[in-house]
């Protein structure tokens, strides 16, 4: 069984729960946006923790691993087999790398909408924004 990083998963859970709390219960729009960002950070932390392997090195082939390999011949896979059984799991890192840019994109759109709302209502409070619409 793979070793289990309890603290990292629990930190991710706390981040997600804090983000949900801010998203649901806070009145300020900026705090809601920060909460939405915190949820994304928690999800990223979960993915990074899944990629952990004890004693493994970074998923980057060192120089002594590929020194004899050429792209046209594939008779050196045994050398890479040693690398593959020691390196940490690399797929979650790639997922996180894409997730960060998507998080930045959604953050920019949310901030733009917040600016537009402030220009229209002259307040950031959701409670005051929809006060007269009952």
């Amino acid at each position, binding site marked *: 069984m793979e070793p289990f990083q309890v603290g990292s998963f629990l930190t991710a859970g706390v981040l997600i729960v804090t983000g949900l709390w801010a998203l649901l219960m806070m009145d300020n729009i900026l705090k809601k946006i920060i909460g939405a960002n915190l949820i994304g950070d928690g999800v990223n932390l979960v993915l990074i923790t899944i990629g952990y392997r004890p004693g493994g090195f970074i998923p980057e082939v060192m120089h002594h691993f590929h020194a004899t390999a050429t792209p046209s011949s594939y008779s050196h896979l045994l050398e890479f087999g040693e690398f593959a059984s020691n390196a940490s799991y690399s797929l979650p890192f790639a997922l996180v790398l894409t997730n960060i840019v998507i998080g930045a994109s*959604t953050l920019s759109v949310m901030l733009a909408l917040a600016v537009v709302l402030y220009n229209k209502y002259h307040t950031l409070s959701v409670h005051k924004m929809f006060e007269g619409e009952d």
Partner: protein
Amino acid sequence: MKTSDYQQGRNIIAGVSLVIASFVILRTLFQFSDYLIPGMSYLYNLYSGNIAPNVITVILFDFRGYDTLGETFILITAVITTTIVFGWGSLKGYKKKETPEMTEKSTVIQRLMAFPLAIFLVAFGVTIVLGGHISPGGGFPGGAVIATGYFLTVVIYGLKKTPLRFTHRYLVNLSTIGALIFLLTGVLGLVATTYYYGTGYYLYNTGVDPYDIIHVGAFGWDNLLDYPDPTHPGILPYLNIGVGLNVLAGLSLIAMFLMEARKDE
């Protein structure tokens, strides 16, 4: 009926359901130990050493190139949405007002050091982008570093007096050119595999030729797409260059729009 009357009961219900949801989330994350399987990562680690040393770049641009293609267009979509929300000509309204308080706030040392530091940040970001296949990094972090260098000068000198004076149109052109580099490199792989094999594969790595379809090196112009590099990453550095352009222009444009909106009230 006032809003605050039923607000209290709704808050209580929301709090209770949030407690239940957080319990479920924490318990699910704690039970993740049953599902920790490496998945495809072993195979990816095994084969990507033949293409480029950095496994994550190979996964990002070769095995899962479609995902990254979609992601560049997500960034462009976010830029377009921000542009639509703020309006294209918000810089024109800014130019009428003279608001020099940004430059008065920064000190002499900041004004002296920010521009050379921005040049160094841009150069470091380019180093990260161009070394994306051999060292940790790539187009996304490198482009973010370059955008940081631009945003440093905007913060110190102000949007009007910044020495790195990008315009909206220039940044939009850079962003779309970056995405087009990605698209057209994939089209080149499609054309080459169709010519040699009969079936076209979009985003095929023509410089590496992992399935020995187009016989790299048989003709002189076949390995034109091989990056001049001892590690033979094929088209990956070009995709990195395109994504770096896209990300630096997109993030700079978003930062510029948010900076202008502050003055726009």
